[in-house]
Every structure is written in structure tokens, then in C-alpha cells.
């Protein structure tokens, strides 16, 4: 079901949480609202749910104006960061709750409720826990029950507020994949909020990057990662090296070095610039392959699993460069601390905007 947000504004005292934000979400999509803490994404989610009221603006669910409706009437499912399971009710009673509080005419029979709950719990693989209490479950298990509970009343939209942030790293990964699979099965329009860009990149059909109450960019994970609209988005998604310099006459300074400026900035007058390079878009070799290569020495080696992180001090640059190389390369080239290497910078993005790191 399509969601349309028009010119939403929300202020808390002096603090502007959401600044004239508009957004369209297609039916059936799994959307991530991604941004740093305090950027307004949770507030936006709660406004959509009806748990907060926007100061101005409209919220349309399936073309119906639901701006001022209470949560009850919006038919949204909400999954809280800390699960918010009813601690005095069993798993069964938790999931059945939404069905039991339906007005008399709409309420299903007891056997229908039982069937539906059983079906949902099976879907989330928690059917064995019918009579357990939340306190007897692990975090990941509780979150799955919370999901089943939200789905029980056939919501038109599923809203998830940082659903995995309270969980261990491994559980988080498992649940991420599991949520994607679940979504592919049931196709409910879903919006989840996260500050973890890995999570957003992995899970979402579309990412909406939010900062200071405004949308910085929206697009598929590919678009947002490969073609970031501005420095903020670039920096937020993935690791990055930043070089402050100046752009002048079609050339960008990188410390003592000069690089060709990207096409769209070739004719820009002189101004300060920030050059971004991704650690894994840096080539490392033992021999010079190119005039433009930088010479440097490995200062630190970090074993990060499949990739190895290198901290390299380069001639002519004030700050060291962070590079990432596959493990085989590291082994084959016999790289180690203190080794001299040549650094090829393959792709840069240059921004001359206001956002400074």
C-alpha cells in the first residue's frame, strides 16, 4: 500500500526534528530510513504510526488522509526497538492481543484466533514458545514474537524502529536475512529505521538517507552507494578517506599531489574541496605502475576477517590513507608493517559543498 508524506514538520521546543520532509513509498517495498542518531528518522516513523503528531503536513495511506488519526485507526504494525512485549502475557496472548481487542463485530472466533496465531508463530519460527513468557526468551526470539504480534492484525504498513539494534552482532545478521526472506514472502509495505548503513544496504529495496530532519538522498542501495549525492551521504555509507584541499583549474589537490578533477567540476573557480576515496577502491602494489601513484609505507595492519585494513603513510600527504585489500593479495604480496608500497587511487569523488567532516 502506497504511503505519501507531504511537507511534514515537527519541532520539539527549539529543536527542529523534521524539516519540511516529503516522501513517496510504493506499495510492497521494504524501505530503510537511514541516518545518524538524532536525525529525526524515529520521529518520522512514529508520526507515520500515529504515536506522535506532526506540527504540519499530511500523511496519506493508500490515498486516504490519515494525518490526524490515532494509531488504532491507521492499521499499522509497529515493532519497537526494545520489543515492548507484554511481560505478563504469554507469547500466544501477546500475538493474539490485536485480534482480541477488535470490536465485537470484527473479532474472529476463538478458534480462528488460535489458528491465526499458530500460523504466524510458525512463520516466525516461534511456534514452540506458545506458553512461554517474554522473560524466558532471548532478544532475537522476543523480536520475532514482536513481529508476529504486529502482523497479526494484517497491517497495511509494517514499521520497525531499529529492530535489531538491541541484539548481539551475530543474531542481528541472522535476523536481517530472515526479515528479508519474510518480506519476500508476505510483501507488506515495510519501513524500518536504522543507523547501521550495512543493515540498510543489505536489506532495503530503497534507502532514504536522512540528516537533520531532511532527506539527503533516496534511491536503491546501489545508487546511494555508488552515486552519493553529497559528502554526507558518501561519508555515511561505507568507510571513507577524506582529503581536504582546493580545486583549481581542473585540478584537485591531494596534499602535495594533484589529480584531474572530475568532469563536472573542471570549470569551477577556485574553492576548497573535499576528496573522498573508498578504502577498497585503492590499489596496492609493490611496484610503481603509474606516474600518478603515491609512495608510502605501511604503518599498521588490521586483520578484519576476509579483508585486511592497511594504514599507510604516504609521501606528500598530511594524513595516512586507509586502504582495504583482499586477504590473498595481502598474502601474495607479502605485505606487512613497515613495507614500502605504491598506492593507486582509482576512483575519487570530489565535493565542494558545505558539509564538512
Amino acid at each position: 500500500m502506497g504511503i505519501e508524506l507531504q511537507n511534514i514538520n515537527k519541532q520539539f521546543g527549539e529543536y527542529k526534528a523534521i524539516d519540511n520532509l516529503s516522501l513517496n513509498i510504493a506499495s510492497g517495498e521494504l524501505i530503510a530510513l537511514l541516518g545518524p542518531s538524532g536525525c529525526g528518522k524515529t520521529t518520522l516513523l512514529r508520526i507515520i504510526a500515529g504515536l506522535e503528531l506532526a506540527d504540519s503536513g499530511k500523511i496519506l495511506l493508500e490515498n486516504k488522509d490519515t494525518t490526524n488519526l490515532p494509531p488504532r485507526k491507521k492499521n499499522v504494525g509497529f515493532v519497537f526497538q526494545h520489543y515492548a512485549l507484554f511481560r505478563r502475557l504469554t507469547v500466544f496472548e501477546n500475538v493474539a492481543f490485536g485480534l482480541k481487542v477488535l470490536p465485537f463485530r470484527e473479532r474472529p472466533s476463538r478458534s480462528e484466533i488460535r489458528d491465526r496465531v499458530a500460523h504466524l508463530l510458525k512463520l516466525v519460527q516461534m511456534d514452540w514458545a506458545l506458553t512461554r513468557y517474554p522473560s524466558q526468551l532471548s532478544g532475537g526470539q522476543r523480536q520475532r514474537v514482536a513481529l508476529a504480534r504486529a502482523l497479526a492484525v494484517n497491517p497495511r504498513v509494517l514499521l520497525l524502529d531499529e529492530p535489531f539494534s538491541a541484539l548481539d552482532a551475530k543474531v542481528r545478521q541472522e535476523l536481517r536475512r530472515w526479515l528479508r526472506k519474510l518480506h519476500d514472502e508476505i510483501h507488506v509495505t515495510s519501513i524500518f529505521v536504522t543507523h547501521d548503513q550495512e543493515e540498510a544496504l543489505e536489506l532495503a529495496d530503497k534507502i532514504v538517507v536522512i540528516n537533520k530532519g531532511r532527506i539527503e538522498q533516496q534511491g536503491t542501495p546501489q545508487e546511494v552507494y555508488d552515486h552519493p549525492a553529497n559528502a554526507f551521504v558518501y561519508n555515511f555509507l561505507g568507510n571513507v578517506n577524506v582529503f581536504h584541499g582546493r580545486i583549481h583549474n581542473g585540478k584537485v589537490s591531494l596534499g602535495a599531489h594533484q589529480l584531474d578533477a572530475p568532469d563536472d567540476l573542471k570549470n569551477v573557480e577556485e574553492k576548497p574541496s573535499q576528496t573522498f576515496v573508498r578504502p577498497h577502491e585503492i590499489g596496492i602494489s609493490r611496484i610503481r605502475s603509474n606516474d600518478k601513484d603515491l609512495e608510502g609505507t605501511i604503518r599498521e595492519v588490521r586483520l578484519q576477517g576476509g579483508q585486511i585494513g592497511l594504514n599507510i603513510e604516504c609521501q606528500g600527504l598530511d594524513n595516512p590513507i586507509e586502504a582495504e585489500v583482499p586477504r590473498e593479495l595481502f598474502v601474495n604480496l607479502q605485505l606487512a608493517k613497515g613495507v614500502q608500497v605504491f598506492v593507486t587511487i582509482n576512483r575519487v569523488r570530489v565535493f565542494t559543498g558545505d558539509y564538512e567532516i
Partner: protein
Amino acid sequence: MQCRSGNRKNIVHKLMPQPEISQSHPPVVKKRISDPLSVQVLLVGLTYLFFIGFIFLPLGLVFSQAFGKGWSVYLEAIREPYAIEAVKLTLLTVAIVVPVNAVFGVAAAWAITKFNFPGKSTLKSLLDLPFAVSPVIAGLIFVLLVGSRTPFGSWLGEHGIKIIFSTPGIIIATIFVTFPFIARELIPLMESQGRDEEEAALTLGAKGWQIFWTVTLPNIRWGLLYGTILCGARSIGEFGAVSVVSGHIRGQTNTVPLHVEILYSEYNFTASFAVASLLVFLALLTVVVKSTMEKHFQKNSFHH
């Protein structure tokens, strides 16, 4: 960290950082530095001395005086009609005061913990008021409000309603003195439980009363019970405030504590202590219940 006292040279070595105990393992039981045995014996002894002087002796006295002249005299004192009337009046007071204050406590706790509004802290401080006010003043204010010599009071008197020197006055004064107990028990409890569950219920379609009955009430039931017990115990034992508003009329406006006072002032010590022993039993029961509940729920917060 272990440290051999007297061997200073090792200290530097011992104070070097130790590997951190991983959170997932149960805590290593460390031997706490303890005071020398002689000090322990002395301090425990002094404590017992204090308790003997201030707690055990008075308790013992009550029972020795109450039962001093034998069972029959004791029972006679308790079954005496005026004593029974006093018990009835006290029970009536409790039966009204506790539910009324419970409703208030729940309402106040709901308003304070589930919402944000200006003036919240002023409201919370108002809840501390009876603890700062002498019980005599607590009684005084109602005499000043609805006593027979006041405009309001005489108006009520013309309509046949007598508050001061009559049962309603006792009830109202007791309400004043005990109204914070349940609220003060519920507020920290509900604050620590947060609003998430209620919000979740809201998104699932529940309405106001449904949310309260099915989500909030089960979560606060032990706090409610605990607060009710404290409120009840205090209602039974209130003396100063009730003393002011009661007419001290035996058989009509005497609560059990007032009856104890009357008997004592007539030098009828045995009877006085006999009736008092009922209150002592109740106090001991309250103390035991309080202690059990606190251990059970590991709350060691004394709400004054």
C-alpha cells in the same frame, strides 16, 4: 585484587591492570575486605543493645502488660463493647480510605508517568506534603474547613451533616494523611516500566481502558498491593490527626488508637495494652509482609 598488607614493595606490581572478567561469565566471588572480628563483635553487640533498648523492650512490655493479669483479663479487654466499637470504626475507616486512595494513586501515577506536561514536578512534590506536616496540623486544617464553627461547616450542620467530631471527619483526616502511599509506590514502578507496552497496545488497536486493564494493571499489581498494605497499616494506626477531629466519644468516634489512649489515661493499663497488642500484632504482620515482599522483588527502597 588481593593485597598483602605490610609488603609495600609488591603493591606496584599488584596494582597493574588485571585482565577484565568477561561479562558472560558469572562474577568471580571475591573475598571482601572485612573488619577484624573484635570490631564486628563490638558493632553487632552495640546494634543489638540499641534494638533491645528501643525495639525489643517496648515490644516485650506490650505483651507483658497485656497478658500480665492472665488470659481472661486480656480477652475481656478485647471483647469489651467499646473496644469492639473502636475496632469496627477503624475497620470502616480503612475500608473507605484505602480504596479511595488507591483510585487516586492509580490516577495520579497514570497522569504523571504516561504523559509529559508542565508542572509535573510541582505535582510530585504535593504528594510529599503529608510527610512534612504534623498530624495535628493535618487534623486542624479540616476543623478549620468543616468544623461546626466555620461557615462551610455550619451550612453542612444545618443540613444534618456533621463532619468534625464524627466519623466522616475521621475518614477525611485519615485520607489526607495516607493519600500519598499508593501513588508514591506506583510512580517509580511505572516510570521504570516506561510507555512502550502501552504504545504497542495502542498500535494494536486497544482502547484506553483496555490498555489499562490488560497491559498496565498486571504490570503494577505487586506495587499496588504493597502500597495498599502500607496505606492500610497507616490508616489503622493514625493517631494525631484523628485525635484532633474525633470527639473522643467512646463507642462512637473512637478508633482503636484513640481507645488505647483513653484506657491509658484512666490508668487502666492492662486493658490499654491489651487493645494495643492488637495494633502491635498488625504492625508486626505489616513488617513481615513488607520484608517478604521486598526480598521477593529485591526492592530495597524505603519510601518515606
